[in-house]
């Protein structure tokens, strides 16, 4: 009896204070935190967020979680273990997030780059990567000598297609002879495949490699081949000090801090946020010194103009690939068009996989 009582007191003492004060935030990642790209960007933000809150927030991660049943299981286990807010940091988790969110109405779900929002406890968040892609396109158009840009693309989803279009339009604007060669890997993280793709693109004459995949493989291939490349999601300079011109660096931390703060305050509500340069959610990695000073200034100006809202990367006239008009002179692309983009703009010679 005495033993029982002690146990009861002990467990009561252990249970109450520890659980009441800390907010638990769970993260699930499609890749390893050591990808030096996309997942690394999210984990960087997670650590920054954890540091910001100190003991008030406890974070946990599960990496390399496949879409589908695996993701559903991991998120369910997180919810069962008392997690208050779950960040699902990849596009493909959509159906899984929605399935789990329906069963745990008291858990807040934050789905990166998603589009399905069937329950009131799901927030969607995304960055306007096409803004950064415009800058990359401008730089690529100016820097290429072969007038050929190689593009390693992951999945043909709106965000990736909009990125290709944005880069192409801005390369074309400064270099009318520009050609884009595009290879689809159907994967976010596959270093071997990305290296193969980079080699193929270089063989096809590309001297600037752009990627919408998460590993550093292409940067290394570009470095060895003596061509140029852009990093993805994180500053990848260390993997190709000569090749790496710049990168769109994801900075999710301010957003993560604000969302976790809302959970702590009890004011969390579902949102759909699409943030860009203006919100500090993306920024450009330092320009490589091989970029002429004039070009560096142009790139700075382009970033500033987009951030200030003076310039939108998709401003008409722009036609679709088949020649039909999309945006009239001076017209700016509505967000809805960009969020569901499933066509190339005029001038791109490749075909969208279908």
């Amino acid at each position, binding site marked *: 009896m005495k033993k029982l009582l002690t146990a009861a007191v002990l467990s009561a003492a252990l249970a109450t204070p520890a659980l009441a004060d800390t907010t638990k935030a769970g993260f699930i990642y499609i890749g*390893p935190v050591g990808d030096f790209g996309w997942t690394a960007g999210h984990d960087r933000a997670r650590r920054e967020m954890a540091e910001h809150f100190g003991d008030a927030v406890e974070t946990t991660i599960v990496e390399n979680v496949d879409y589908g*049943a695996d993701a559903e299981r991991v998120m369910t*286990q997180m919810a069962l273990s008392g997690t208050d807010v779950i960040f699902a940091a990849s596009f493909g988790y959509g159906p899984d997030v929605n399935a789990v969110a329906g069963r745990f109405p008291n858990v807040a779900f934050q789905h990166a780059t998603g589009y399905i929002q069937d329950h009131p406890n799901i927030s969607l968040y995304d960055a306007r990567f096409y803004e950064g892609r415009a800058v990359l396109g401008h730089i690529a158009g100016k820097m290429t000598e072969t007038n050929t840009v190689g593009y390693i693309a992951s999945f043909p989803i*709106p965000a990736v297609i909009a990125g290709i279009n944005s880069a192409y339009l801005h390369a074309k604007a400064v270099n009318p002879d520009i050609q884009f060669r595009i290879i689809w890997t159907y994967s976010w993280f596959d270093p071997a495949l990305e290296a193969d793709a980079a080699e193929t693109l270089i063989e096809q004459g590309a001297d600037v490699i752009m990627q919408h995949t998460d590993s550093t493989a292409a940067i290394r291939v570009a470095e060895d081949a003596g061509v140029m490349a852009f990093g993805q999601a994180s500053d990848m300079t260390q993997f190709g000090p000569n090749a790496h011109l710049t990168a769109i660096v994801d900075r999710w931390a301010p957003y993560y801090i604000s969302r976790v703060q809302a959970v702590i305050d009890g004011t969390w509500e579902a949102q759909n946020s699409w943030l860009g340069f203006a919100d500090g959610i993306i920024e450009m990695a330092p320009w490589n010194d091989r970029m002429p000073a004039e070009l560096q200034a142009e790139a700075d100006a382009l970033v500033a103009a987009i951030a200030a809202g003076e310039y939108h990367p998709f401003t008409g006239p722009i036609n679709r690939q088949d020649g039909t008009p999309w945006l009239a002179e001076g017209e700016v692309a509505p967000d809805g068009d960009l969020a569901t983009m499933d066509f190339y703009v005029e001038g791109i010679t490749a075909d969208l996989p279908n």
Partner: protein
Amino acid sequence: MIRLEKRKQPSRFWRIANPFLAVALTMLAGGVMFAALGKDPLVAIRLIFFDPIFSETFASYSRPQLLIKSAPLILIAVGLAIGFKAGIWNIGAEGQYIIGALFGAGVALAFFPQPGWYIFPLMVIAGAFGGFLWAMIPAILKTRFNTNEILVSLLLVYVAERILAAMALGLMRNPDQPGFPGSRDLRRYEAAHNAELFANTGIHWGVVAALIAVIFAYVMMTRHMLGFHVQLAGQAPRAARFGGVSPTRLVVICLGISGALAGLAGMFEVSGPGGQVRIEFASGYGFTAIIVAFLGRLNPLGIVFAGLLLGLTYIGGELSQMMLQIPGAAIQVFQGMLLFFLLALDFQTNYRIRLTKGARA
């Protein structure tokens, strides 16, 4: 002096004991690794092996999940093991799994949104047929042109993955969600949904099929002439040929069975836990099943245990990542250790260590 001596007969004792010893050694070596990572090894191993089944917080959910994760592995591995016994190496179960899923989903999407009791059975037949068909490519190439089935079946996985991507982006794409790859969610189409048969047990038709396949394979391998032929062909191919076993027939049967079972697994997955045809639908079940087959000693009952054990390390691995922040890569190393120790220990089955006195002459 330590000497290795080949046994006249493989040791029955070690054949059975090795898997258990391998698990124990994996726990030990894994524990050392977890300790080196600064994690409590006992807690880590408890999280991986026990909490998914016994923990108060997780077990009610993860126990059924164990069946969901293991059923496709077992279903595929049982088929593969029959071929492996005969020395017919189907390495491309992943491809057959994908094609089976596409055939099954194709039937469902063709009938959408019509109700009908016959739709699901048709999907089952289509799924098995799809996997069978995909396995017939290496089978026919082998029997007609003597190509290597290992290479052909493996390379066909990549072809299947491309077909899957094309389907998710084209023909099978959900017309209500333009711009995004992926088919309709079959879980929301009642006639095609491979739902849980009993609530919160994790038992869906795929689990039932796995069970039936295990019994079927067991009876076939131990009681039926075909099983005898398979064993004979694997152990003494020349004798088998003299004994009237047709190698061509055997190749077709073994690849056909394993292909059909892999196709079934894919179909049950896409209509249930997986939910829809997506580019990333295949998550390596077809390859993991090869490990399961060997871990289970190519024996149907062994495969059941091996499938459950591997499923457990997956689910427990996620738990230990989540609760203890063990890196995902360390979990993969841990799973790798399991196979490594098993294969390393296998030498005991065929060899014995002899301590001999003095130097050899």
